[in-house]
């Protein structure tokens, strides 16, 4: 188990399976708010569902409406359960707070892979189990 110290954006405790993106993510335009699927065919996560995952990505980009997309997902039970970023900016910070999704940043995301089991505990991230695939 590896323990990593992070900066809290929205505090909370949550454990789950990682969905990781090497590329930044624009929630507005790239994620379908009614399904949680990444619908931007140019994005590496195209076709994947972010619902119920610990979403790990470098940073968000695009329209500030992205905050509302996270809120819409949360209301439909389709939001990620936690988010880990390299550098959080306004879109994700506001989205995380209004949607009450535990979120941390200032983490090197290259140590995680899709399928890993990860726990966010306030300002600490625990890599519980590496993915075998």
């Amino acid at each position, binding site marked *: 188990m590896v323990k990593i110290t992070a*900066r809290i*954006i*929205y505090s909370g405790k949550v454990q789950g399976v990682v969905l990781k993106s090497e590329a930044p993510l624009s929630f507005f335009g790239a994620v379908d*708010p009614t399904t949680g699927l990444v619908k931007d065919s140019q994005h590496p996560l195209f076709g994947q569902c972010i619902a119920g995952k610990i979403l790990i990505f470098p940073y968000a980009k695009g*329209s*500030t*409406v992205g*905050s*509302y*997309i996270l*809120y*819409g*997902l949360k*209301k439909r039970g389709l939001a990620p359960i936690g988010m880990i970023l390299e550098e*959080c*900016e*306004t*879109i994700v*910070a*506001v989205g*995380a*707070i*209004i949607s009450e999704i535990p979120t941390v940043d200032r983490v090197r995301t290259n140590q995680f892979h899709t399928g890993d089991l990860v726990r966010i505990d306030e300002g600490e991230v625990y890599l519980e189990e590496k993915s075998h695939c």
Partner: protein
Amino acid sequence: MKLTEKENDLLSGKHGAGLKKAMEILVALGKIYGAKEMVPVTSAQIAGISYKNIGDPGLEFLRDWAESNARAHIPAFMNPAGIDRQTWRQLGFPEGFAKKQLEIIEILKQMGVRATLTCTPYHIGIVPQQGEHIAWSESSAVSYANSLLAARTNREGGPSALAAAFCGRTPRCGLHLHENRLATHRILVKCPAKTSADYGMLGYLIGKKIGQGIPYFQGLEIPANEAERTACLKALGAAMAAAGAVALFHIEKVTPEANDYGERIIKQDCKLIEIDSLEEAQRALHQVGQQVDLVALGCPHVSLEELAAIAGLIQNRQLKSPLWIATSAIVREQARAKNLVSMIENAGGRVLADTCMVVAPLEEMGIKHIGTNSAKAAVYLPSHQSAIVHFGTTERCVQAAISGHWED
């Protein structure tokens, strides 16, 4: 971050869940951008009003936040919406869209936000003083307030501007601090810029080149007429904010901070950019073609003087293409009193209030080929409305409305 007792109370939920959420947003943003404390703000301008932009997720969020009884504690006002509240039926705006839009406006009114529905609050008497801290979100209004009024605001998002309205404060960081207001680029303009369309093209070029930088312009011959000057500098700031993310600019011997500080408002290690021609912008913003479904002026919203100038151009003419001129409801009333609205309507044009071509549901209404004098609109219309844009001066736009087609 150091918080006052009041701020800690807000954060702990002593004043209710809605204000707690607002304070959480402000604290998180302060943390991200390195603020040491909050600063009181005197007004908030809220973007993210159009249903076209925020959709059902935004509507749901605002509805839920309003239910928590969060209310604006400082003057707060709305950016344009997706409809003209008076004339949307006549103009054929879709009913389903209009209903959702009216609900958003009602929710915000309930939260204590004034339905000014304009991107140019400074044309309706909302004019912050030099050094005043505000929390505005419409990017062209942010640029205008920072640059021409020397008020201080970051470029807020809709929720963070609402949070500032509820709590009466914002994190003291970014453009609230003098040291972050110094110019990063010296821009030497060597070609003539005369019309507001020229200023828009210049803004487009600089926005593309410097992104989030702060330009200091030299060599600009600003129009002597105050209304024309305002129109040109409004277009310049709007285009830089749309093509890039410029939230503040200085102009030698023109803007207040350039006047107060002279060259001390420029960073020691600033970069130099020379502009010899605006042609590159013309090529990027304009698409060749004759068809015009709509000629749209008023991005940002026109002042009364601009509206009068346009009315003068179309007086006693009969337009072959629809012409929309967007402004605030207050300016439209002033224009009505001067018979300007009837002059425009007699020629076949319309003065729209509360909305504009960027946030109205044009695509849904089948409007595709749009002529405009706004570089900002020309940046957004292709991506936001899948439109084909013909860009030119106000005169050229009016000519296209009169003849019914665009002439290159």
